C-alpha cells in the first residue's frame, strides 16, 4: 500500500515535467511576440541604429527563434534566468528577494481567509437554508464580487487615510525600521527568529491591509466548499450511523464530518492559493508591495522578456509544486488513494 502511494506520487512528479516544458514553450512564444523591440529598449534613450544592432547581437536576438529557444532552455537548466531589462538585476536574484514578499502576503491572506471562511462554512452547513446560511453566503459573495483593486483602495482610504489606524502603505516596512537579517526572507518570521519584536510588529502591521484585501476574495470559494462538503459529510450515512451509535454531536461534526470534508477543502485551498498568488499582482500595485506581482506588471508593460519569462516559469514551478504537494497530502491523507486506480 505504501508502495502504491509512492508510485502514485512519483507518477505525479513525472507528470509535472511535460507541464513545465509546455509552460516554457508558451512563455517563450508569448514573450517573443510582445510588442516592442527589447534591443531598442535596452539600447537606451538616444541610441542609434548601429548601437541597437549591437545590443541585438549581444542579446542573441538576431538568431533564429528555435535557436533562441534552445539557448534559453540551456540557460534555464544552468540556473541562468537572464537579466531583467527594466530593473537591471538578474531575474533570479530579483525573484529571490521578491518572492518571499509575495509569499508572505499570500500566505497571511490565505490564513486570514481560512480562519474566517471555514467557521462561516461550518455554521452555514449546520443550519442550511437558515438566515445564518444566507448571511454567510451574502458576506462571502460580496467579498468575491469586489474587484481586488477596489477593495484594496477602499481599505487603504478608510484605514490609512481617514482613520490613520494602518501604517503608511509603502511596502514591507516603514522607513524607520531596518529590514531584518535575511534568513527566510519573510520579514515577520526573520524578525521573530532574531527576537526583534519591534520589527516584527512593524512588518506585521504593514501586512494586515493588503493581506485582508486578498483574504476578502478568497473567502467565497473556501466557505462555499466548506459548506458543501460539510453538508455532504453531515448527510452521509456514516455520520448518521455515528449518530445512531451515540457518538456525541461535537465529535460527529468535528472529528467525522470535518475530517472528511477537509479532503476536498484541501484541493480548493490549493486552487485558492494559486489564485491569490496571481491576484497579488493588483494588490501589490495598490500597496506598493515589492513582490513578484508588481515586478511582473512592470516587466510585461516594458516588454522585459527575460523578466516575464523568469516570473512565469518560477510561478509555474511554484503552482505545479503546490499542486503536487496538495496531491501528495491528499494521497497521504486519503487512504482510498492509490488503491482504486
Amino acid at each position, binding site marked *: 500500500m505504501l508502495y502504491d502511494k509512492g508510485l502514485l506520487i512519483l507518477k505525479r512528479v513525472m507528470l509535472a515535467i511535460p507541464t513545465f516544458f509546455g509552460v516554457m514553450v508558451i512563455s517563450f512564444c508569448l514573450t517573443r511576440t510582445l510588442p516592442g523591440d527589447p534591443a531598442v529598449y535596452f*539600447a537606451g534613450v538616444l*541610441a542609434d541604429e548601429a548601437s541597437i544592432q549591437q545590443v541585438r547581437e549581444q542579446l542573441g536576438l538576431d538568431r533564429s527563434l528555435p535557436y533562441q529557444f534552445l539557448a534559453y532552455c540551456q540557460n534555464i537548466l544552468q540556473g541562468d534566468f537572464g537579466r531583467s531589462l527594466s530593473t537591471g538585476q538578474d531575474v533570479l536574484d*530579483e525573484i529571490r528577494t521578491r518572492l518571499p514578499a509575495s509569499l508572505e502576503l499570500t500566505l497571511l491572506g490565505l490564513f486570514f481567509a481560512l480562519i474566517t471562511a471555514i467557521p462561516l462554512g461550518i455554521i452555514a452547513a449546520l443550519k442550511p437554508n437558515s438566515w445564518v446560511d444566507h448571511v454567510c453566503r451574502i458576506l462571502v459573495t460580496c467579498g468575491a464580487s469586489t474587484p481586488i483593486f477596489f477593495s484594496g483602495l477602499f481599505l487603504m482610504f478608510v484605514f490609512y487615510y481617514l482613520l490613520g489606524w494602518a501604517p*503608511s502603505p509603502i511596502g514591507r516596512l516603514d522607513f524607520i525600521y531596518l529590514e531584518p537579517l535575511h534568513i527566510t526572507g519573510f520579514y515577520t518570521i526573520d524578525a521573530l527568529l532574531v527576537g526583534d519584536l519591534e520589527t516584527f510588529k512593524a512588518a506585521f502591521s504593514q501586512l494586515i491591509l493588503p493581506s485582508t484585501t486578498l483574504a476578502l476574495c478568497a473567502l467565497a470559494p473556501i466557505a462555499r466548499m466548506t459548506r458543501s462538503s460539510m453538508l455532504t459529510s453531515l448527510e452521509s450515512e456514516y455520520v448518521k450511523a455515528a449518530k445512531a451509535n451515540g457518538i456525541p454531536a461535537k465529535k460527529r461534526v468535528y472529528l467525522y464530518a470535518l475530517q472528511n470534508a477537509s479532503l476536498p477543502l484541501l484541493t480548493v485551498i490549493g486552487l485558492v492559493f494559486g489564485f491569490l498568488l496571481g491576484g497579488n499582482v493588483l494588490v501589490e500595485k495598490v500597496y506598493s508591495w515589492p513582490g513578484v506581482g508588481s*515586478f511582473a506588471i512592470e516587466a510585461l508593460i516594458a516588454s522585459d522578456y527575460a523578466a516575464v519569462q523568469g516570473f512565469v516559469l518560477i510561478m509555474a514551478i511554484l503552482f505545479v509544486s503546490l499542486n503536487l504537494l496538495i496531491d501528495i497530502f491528499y494521497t497521504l491523507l486519503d487512504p482510498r488513494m492509490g488503491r482504486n486506480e
Partner: protein
Amino acid sequence: DTRQETLIVLSGASINSLDIHRTGTNRPSYQVAVNMYDRLVSFGIKESANGSLKYDSSTIKPELAESWELVDDGMSYLFHIRKDATFWDGSPVTADDVKWSFDRAISLGGFPTVQMKAGGLTSPEQFVVVDKHTFKVKMFKPSKLTLPDLAVPIPMVINSTLAKKHATKDDPWATEYLHKTPAGGGAYMLERWVPGQQLVYKRFDDWKSGDLPKMKRVIVREVPSSATRRALIERGDADVALGLPSKDVKELMSYPSLKVSSSTIDNTIHALGLNMNFEPFSKTKVRQAIAYAIPYQEIFDVAAYGMGKPMWGRDTEKATSILWPQPFPYNTNLEKAKSLLAEAGYPNGFEVPISINLGFSQWTEPTALLIQENLKAIGISAPVNKIPGASWRTKALVEKGLELHLKNFGGWLNYPDYYFFWAYIKGHLFNSMNYDNPEIKSLVDSSLHMEVTDSQYDTNVKRLIDIATDEVPMIPLWQPSLDVVMKSNVSGYVNWFHRQLDIRAFSKE
C-alpha cells in the same frame, strides 16, 4: 541620525541601475549620477519668480574643476581639478580618473556616447591628461555645446582605480561592478539599494566640490501609485513627493502643511505629432486644419490643470523672439479648420487612430479624448490607441509608424536649435513625424555650434520657428511644468533640466 536629518522622498519610478553609462539604465536612475558622482562643471542655480529654485542654463560653475580656460585658440578647454577632492575611499581625484570616465562614456555606446557626441566629444584623443590635476578637452570644432555638455549627468567622474580592479577582459569598463556598486566621490554615498523598493543615500562628509549638504540620510522610496504618494505626503509621512499629477499638485498647493515647487521645464513641449507618411497629413492644409481644431484651453485646464505654459494663441504671425518654446499663433477655430480641410480635399474627413503612451496616461488620455471629440466635429474620426511605455519607443521613435500621436520631447541643452536638431530633422530620433525640410536641416546645421551671441543665430532661429509654425508637423499644446510637493519645512528643491532629484541642496527646518 534623527528624523530631522533624514529626508524621505517618494518616487513613482524605479531605479534600475547605479551606472548611468550602462545600456538599459532608465531615466529615474540618472539621479544616482547626479548625487553620487561629481562632474567637472555644473550649471548655476537661480531663483525663479515664484520663489522656487531652478538651474541656470546660462551660467556654468565649478564642481570638481576649480577653474578652466579656453586654450589652443579656442580649440581646447583646460580644467584645473581641485587638489583636495577625494573619492569616498579617500583616494584623490585625478585627471586620470576623469579621462577614464570620459573614455568610458564615449566607448560604451548607446545613450552616453550619443549625449557626449552632442557636445562634439567623440574620440578618446580629445581627452588629454596634462598632469595629475590638469585635464584638457580638445574640440574638433568650437561649439557652444561642449562646455554645457560637460555639465549634464553623463560625464561624471568615476574612481577609476577602484573600477579597474573589477574590470575583466569581457568587461573592460567594469559595467557589472558599477551597475550595483557606485564608485565615486559625490556628495552622497550609497547606504543601501533594494531595487524596486528603495535607495538610501548617506552623506559623504568629506565632500569638497560644494557646500556640505544638510541632510545626512535620504531615503528614496518607490511608491508606484500616485494616489498613495499623495496620501502619504498629505498625511505627513514623507517629506517630498515626486511625480504627482497636476491635479493633485494644484489641490495640494492650498495645504498649509505643504509647499509646491513648480516651474516649467526648459526646452520641452507636449505636442501632437502628425506623421507625414500618413497620406492626408502630408498636406500642409490638413495639418493646419488640425491645429485649428485642437481645444487648447480645455486641454490645458483638464490635462495640465493650468500648470505649465500655454503654447497657442500668439498674436503675431511671425516669431518676434527666439525664446523657445514659444506659443504658436493657432487658436481653436472649428470653422476655419473645416474650411482648410475642405480646401485640402477632405471635406468629409477621414479616419486616423490617435496613439498615446500608456506610461503618461495622466495627461495623454484626457488630451487625446478632448482632441478626439473636436476632430469628430470636423469629420475626422480618431479612435484612441494606447501603447505600453516600452513599445512606445519602438513604434513612435524607431519605426516612426504612428499616424497621430501625443509626444513630449525635451532637450537637455537649452537651445532652440538643439531642439530642432532632434525633433525636426528627418531620420533623427525624436522626429516621429517623418518631417523633412531641407531648409530646416541646413539652418540647424549652421546654427548648432554657433554662439548665441552671433546675430545670424537670431535670424536662423526665428526662421526655424516660422517654418515649424507654418508647416506644423507637430502641434505644440503646452510647455509642461515640473511640480514637486514638499512638506513646508523642507526647502532646497532644484528644478533641473534632467528632471532628476538633486538632494544636495535640501534642508529641513
